[in-house]
């Protein structure tokens, strides 16, 4: 018995000191190309964030450009857009997260209550179509509805005697419009997560509930919703972690680039600001500035993911992403 234990221990040691075998080298060589590509396209740009602390000059390149310390950050914090950007990004995204999750869960539960599998499949297919469209096509559709002169919505309002509204110059309407567009695009795919989780519920639970005389509503409250809570937490963490990364396509093309500035008040978010400043280049050190803004966004994102994850784990050890 003792001898056996000893040999097992020895095996463990030899295993640890084991030389890298030929087959291991083959495995390493297999992943060499992808690892190098990730280094080039993901890691080198990470080192490039030093531009955030520099005054970037085209002729000098990343390394040779002069250091400016925290000036780029200072410029951003002191500029008029700072408050606007943070407010728009966080509020719009918070609106999308809350309403998006609510509708995805609602649709998933209703789909689950639908007994005919054939119609469930059909409705799912019909709800997913927007997922297959690009934001550009979505922008054309939104335009068809909201166009001030020909748009469908204005005609509908006209039937009720309401005068034509030029939606592309009404910033206050856009948080609502974008929320609807965001739900429209994502609800079909988002409800899949919840639906898949509901399908895994043990059906005997429902039978037991029925015998106990629980009605449909009670079943949803006491069986369906508790099953979804871990998933809601995980997806919620991921979404809150991304709250500073606004969907560029939604905020840029669907608003038609903020309808050339008319809508910036409510639709100018960090990602669109970064892109515009970068493209425009009229600000002296636009590369340094936009990199600084992007860096801030990334860092705040990491902090948010870690914090929400930690908080979720405090509530329940099983919850949380990592």
């Amino acid at each position, binding site marked *: 018995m003792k001898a056996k234990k000893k040999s097992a221990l020895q095996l463990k040691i030899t295993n640890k000191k084991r030389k890298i075998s030929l087959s*291991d080298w083959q*495995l390493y060589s*297999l*992943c060499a*190309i*992808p*690892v190098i*590509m990730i280094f*080039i*396209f993901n890691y*080198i*740009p*990470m*080192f*490039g964030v030093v*531009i955030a602390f520099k005054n970037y000059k085209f002729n000098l390149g*990343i390394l040779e450009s002069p250091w400016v310390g925290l000036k780029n950050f200072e410029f951003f914090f002191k500029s008029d857009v700072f408050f606007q950007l943070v407010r728009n990004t966080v509020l719009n995204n918070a609106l999308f997260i809350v309403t998006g999750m609510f509708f995805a869960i609602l649709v998933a539960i209703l*789909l689950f*209550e*639908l*007994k*005919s599998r054939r119609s469930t499949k059909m*409705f799912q*297919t*019909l*709800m997913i*179509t*927007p*997922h*297959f*469209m*690009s*934001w*550009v*096509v979505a922008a*054309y*559709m939104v335009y*068809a*509805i909201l166009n001030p002169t*020909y*748009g*469908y919505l204005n005609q509908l309002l006209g039937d009720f005697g309401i005068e034509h509204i030029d939606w592309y110059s009404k910033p206050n309407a856009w948080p609502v419009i974008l929320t609807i567009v965001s739900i*429209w695009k994502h609800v*079909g795919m988002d409800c*899949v997560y919840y639906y*898949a989780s509901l399908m895994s519920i043990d059906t005997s639970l429902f039978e037991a509930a029925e015998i106990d005389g629980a009605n449909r509503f009670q079943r949803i409250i006491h069986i369906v919703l508790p099953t979804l809570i871990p*998933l809601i937490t995980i997806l919620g963490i991921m979404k809150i972690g991304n709250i500073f990364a606004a969907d*560029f*396509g939604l905020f840029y*093309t669907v608003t038609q*680039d903020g309808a050339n500035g008319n809508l910036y008040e409510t639709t100018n978010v960090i990602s669109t600001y970064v892109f515009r400043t*970068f493209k425009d280049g009229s600000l002296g050190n636009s590369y340094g500035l*936009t*990199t600084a803004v*992007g860096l801030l*966004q*990334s860092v705040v*994102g990491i902090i948010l*993911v870690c914090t929400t994850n930690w908080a979720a784990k405090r509530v329940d050890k099983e919850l949380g*992403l990592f």
Partner: protein
Amino acid sequence: MRKHNMVFQIVLTCIFIVFCFMINFPFWLLISASLSDANVLAQQGYQIWPKPVDFSSYIYIFKNPGQILNAYGVTFTFSVVSMILSVLLTAMIAYPLSRKHLRGRNIINFYLYFTMLFSGGLVPTYLVVAKYLHLDDTIWVYILPGAVSAWNVFMMRTFFSGIPGEIIESAKVDGASEYKIFATMIIPLSKPVIATIGLMIFLSKWNDWNTALIYITEPKLYSLQYLLQSIMEDINMLKQNPDAAAMMQEMNVPSETIRMAMAVVVAGPALVVFPFFQKYFVKGLTVGSVKG
């Protein structure tokens, strides 16, 4: 009890029919506008039923297919190449990571995971891709950056881990190299996950418009979606000009109905084809949501 249930099911079905109708309504409006007569549209606006049905926008597009056909060619090329290359590269890194005995496996895992947490952002990436690698205004800019995504690797790794280790061990006893095991056993056994990831990559490339927005200035290399986007941008630019109407005529800007027809021509084929693969997209989500 039973009757009450029937009524509930019928009501629920009706709710879903209305909901699905609402979700697909914008696409119908687009088709209807593209089938309208430009003058009628200018007078009455968008209608649910085009009266009269008029195919002239489509005839115009098919008579002058140059740009759109070219964009189709470019988009199809880089989508297919991206799909094949990305799936291959993803599998090449996912397979070693699925082998539990491999030393340094956790380091590579973290190396990948970190790219999900942090990224250089727009400008540094642009500088590397355009100024150092000179990939701008080439078709490779659509393909190479982001060819290996950590998310896809983890998804494929999870699938590979499910392949029984005995199969691999027995092949090794027979003297097969890891390359041979990878090519002749792992890949053929992993068709479901390869199809899922391949289709997800294809869809995202097919709908890619912002790569061209940042890196492409040469119209011959415009992707399909960016072509649509650039038309919209041109018109928005012209609208700011006081002589917009005259300039639009002079520059031969496509009319409202033609633009809508172009949007249908761009989105239509994908919308017809992708739903057939819905199963794979749904699977991709649920597999990807597995922890670790």
